[in-house]
């Protein structure tokens, strides 16, 4: 099989690349910048349409570096959706300067490609490169508001933290290579089975896990999250709260599905502890936050803790729960950040107290924001509930009862701060009521997310069917 023949498997990525270059190029000439956004969207949609034709289940391509399977297809859809919604948010987001728009969309699309490659890679080398690419692009996007100290500071912290952990991860990978003489995941797992408990194997794997934990923002690799989230332009915050996190979990899953990391008590114990700490710490610190973006940052840390439950239990249901959770999380988190973007446009503040009486200014935004927050809190019949339900179901099924109990207690604690935002929006009266028009694209993004959340909550069958049909 030749490399050229393999190209058809990465057709969507190629389309995106062409689109990205076109956007970058057109950005220099086009006056009406929204065209760039539309063009990027068109590229994403086209890529999405081509996606089903571009894979044959379980084919290894490019010398086994990439694999084309339904698992990666799922995540590719997820990233395309994420990118599309983020672009919709960005189109109306005025704090990104017009002259930078071309680069902005370019970076977004390239980031999407990197994420798509990361989930289809089946080799530690490729995994490392793709993740590094995702990170670098995310740093740049975070720092995109050049003249904003918050933006630069957040990006610098993000960068330093990311670089250090990726160096650690790389160091771990180098040892894995030394131990097994290969970087291919299946080959490693074949020779790993005997040596799972070995200390020499454990530490490199731990290093790799650390690198991925940074992506997933698990405790104690979570500390960049609030700062980066607060500093980044809100659409970018939306993106990095979903995209790279999903990449982290996808790669974790990929490695995990190759029987690496599992079946030793030590790992289970360790990941359980990480899961518990992640959700508890995230939730508790979120309680006293006053900046909405920071609050949502901590909330996304906590969400990662719930998702990790699916890993801990290591059952088919657990895996499905993780996928389902990520899929739902996409909509609710992007939706929430879209609302934050919209609201901050309107009131020029991220302070929760300034959200007072927002229901009067923009009833629709306040309403959907409430729905997203409630969904994040796991209130039925919204999608977030279904996701949490599956995660806890997996925990109960595998008899991780303590974990489930801590999880549900956490979701109660979480309710407090989600409702705090709602309380300010609905229960307080506004200081002033200028009603700003909502950009159409943003509205559209909100509607998509809102409808998806409702549909996932009330009629999750299609998503469940899809996930059930995935081959691992």
């Amino acid at each position, binding site marked *: 099989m030749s490399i050229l023949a393999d190209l058809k498997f990465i057709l969507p990525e190629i389309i995106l690349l062409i689109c990205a270059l076109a956007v970058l190029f057109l950005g220099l000439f086009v006056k009406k910048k929204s065209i760039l956004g539309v063009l990027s969207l068109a590229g994403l949609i086209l890529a999405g349409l081509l996606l089903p034709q571009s894979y044959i289940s379980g084919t290894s391509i490019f010398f086994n570096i990439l694999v084309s399977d339904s698992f990666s297809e799922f995540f590719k859809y997820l990233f395309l959706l994420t990118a599309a919604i983020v672009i919709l948010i960005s189109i109306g987001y005025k704090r990104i300067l017009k002259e930078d728009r071309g680069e902005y969309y370019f970076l977004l699309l390239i980031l999407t490609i990197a994420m798509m490659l990361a989930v289809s890679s089946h080799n530690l080398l490729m995994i490392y490169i793709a993740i590094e690419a995702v990170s670098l692009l995310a740093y740049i996007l975070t720092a995109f508001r050049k003249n904003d100290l918050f933006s630069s500071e957040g990006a610098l912290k993000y960068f330093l933290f990311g670089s250090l952990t990726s160096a650690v991860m790389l160091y771990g990978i180098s040892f894995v290579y030394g131990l097994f003489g290969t970087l291919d995941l299946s080959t490693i797992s074949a020779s790993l089975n005997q040596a799972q408990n070995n200390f020499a194997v454990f530490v490199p794997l731990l290093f790799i896990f650390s690198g991925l934990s940074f992506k997933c923002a698990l405790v104690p690799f979570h500390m960049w999250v609030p700062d980066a989230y607060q500093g980044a332009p809100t659409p970018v915050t939306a993106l990095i709260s979903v995209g790279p996190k999903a990449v982290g979990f996808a790669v974790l899953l990929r490695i995990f599905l190759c029987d690496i990391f599992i079946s030793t008590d030590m790992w289970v114990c360790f990941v359980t502890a990480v899961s518990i700490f992640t959700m508890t710490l995230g939730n508790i610190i979120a309680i006293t936050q006053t900046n909405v973006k920071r609050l949502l940052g901590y909330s996304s840390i906590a969400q990662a803790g719930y998702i990790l439950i699916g890993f801990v239990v290591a059952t088919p249901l657990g895996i499905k729960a993780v996928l389902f959770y990520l899929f739902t999380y996409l909509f609710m988190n992007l939706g929430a950040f879209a609302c934050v973007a919209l609201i901050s446009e309107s009131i020029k503040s991220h302070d929760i107290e300034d959200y007072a009486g927002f229901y009067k200014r923009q009833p629709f935004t306040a309403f959907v924001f409430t729905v997203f927050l409630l969904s994040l809190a796991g209130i039925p019949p919204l999608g977030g509930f279904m996701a949490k339900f599956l995660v806890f*179901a997996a925990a109960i099924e595998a008899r991780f009862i303590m974990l489930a109990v801590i999880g549900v207690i956490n979701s109660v604690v979480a309710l407090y701060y989600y*409702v705090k935002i709602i309380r300010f929006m609905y229960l307080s009266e506004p200081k002033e009521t200028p009603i700003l028009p909502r950009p159409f694209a943003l509205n559209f993004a909100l509607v998509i997310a809102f409808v998806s959340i409702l549909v996932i909550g009330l009629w999750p069958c299609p998503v*469940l069917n899809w996930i059930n049909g995935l081959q691992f």
Partner: protein
Amino acid sequence: MSFPILSLLVFLPLLGSLVILLIPKKKTGAIKALATVITAAVFIISIFLLIKFNYTNTNMQFEERLTWIPQINVSYHLGLDGLSIGLIFLTGLLSFLACISSCRDIHIRHKEYFFLYLMLITGMLGTFVALDLFLFYVFWELVLVPMYFLIGIWGGARKEYAAMKFFLYTLAGSVFMLLGILALYFNSPVRTFDILELAKYAPAFTLGLQILIFLAFYFGFAVKVPIFPFHTWLPDAHVEAPTPISVILAGVLLKMGAYGFLRISFPLLKDAAHYFAFPLAVLGAVNILYGAFVAMAQTDFKKMVAYSSVSHMGFVLLGMASFTVTGFNGAILQMFNHGIITGAMFLLVGVIYSRAHTRDLDKFGGLGVKMPVYAGFLSLFTFASLGLPGLSGFVGEFLSLLGGYYTFKTVTIISALGLVITAGYFLYMLQRMLLGSLNEKWAGLSDISKVEIFTLVPLMIITVVIGVYPLSILKYQSAAVIDLITKISGVIQ
């Protein structure tokens, strides 16, 4: 499949709430009219169900079953039996009356109010007819969100605190219930959420497992009932909530907890239920006495009524813990009666509050002269509430105690002392409200209006009718109760 009347019943309010979203905010008249029509329709459907209901049949009636989420065996399964028919009627009635009261009592943000209010009704009705645990849980939680807003936006001085407390408290309880549901699901040989299906498998679980699951459900239900010491959300929520919402809260929401015990905990986890019978009875007695004592010390009229709810729900608990036909009948009847009577009490509190803008009992006095009709209603419902024979409250308490006495003599005798304390604080309230010389401050108060009378009269009629002829409502449930007891205990006691 026959006409899905239960779905119509449950989703009609939701439909109404969506329609309300389409009505412009300014047209409050249209919004009120629509909400009233919808709740009236719900009430009519509930009466229709009452008429059509065959009470000799212990099976589920008007059953509807559709697949919902086949991947995890969740079905959309609704049904009605003797345990729920009374509560459906109660919900239909109270939501209609509270809606009328809302039209008068709510002065701001009508659109949102009625939107949430109708959603709330859907949640409550759904909880009582759902036969699938997943669906049950969805409806159960669906109640929380509208309730949060209804207390939080239209409530009193400490509304935000009360609303948040209510929300967190009940959610904390119900998430444990969720774990219990999952434990049932995964331990049953056939993985299903269907209550009727699970009833076949769950009783075979080991005692240890049953206890664990029972406790999980217990937290969920105990918060709602509420059982001491999980009751502290109740006085805050009741006091801060606007009148119609207090009516719904006390009238319907508290019943969801007790209903949960009867529908889920007892038939499914019968060994654990027997295991916990004594603690439940003791908690019932604690509720009765503790609630009564605390009620006595209150100076806020509404808070007093709220604590009296704690006390009254103790009888429900005691009746249920007895595991006798008598006790169960008493408990269900007491649930119904408490809904009617306390609903009326809160309406009456609302009447006086809307005029005097205070609920401080010490500030009233001698209102019997100024508001004779109001005094009449208040006295009637007070006496019904303190369990005066001939009025409905007595029958429920009597049967609960009778059942309780069969199983737990001492506990029941101690509980019976609660009757004296109850009489004490209610009369003390009457004395401070109606008797004595008129405080000149209230000389300008007008007596109860026609609309208010209209909301109270149906409750009054029911109170009296059940008091002298309890069979009128008991007949709907007795077959189901016998069936339930047979399932739980094997023998009828």
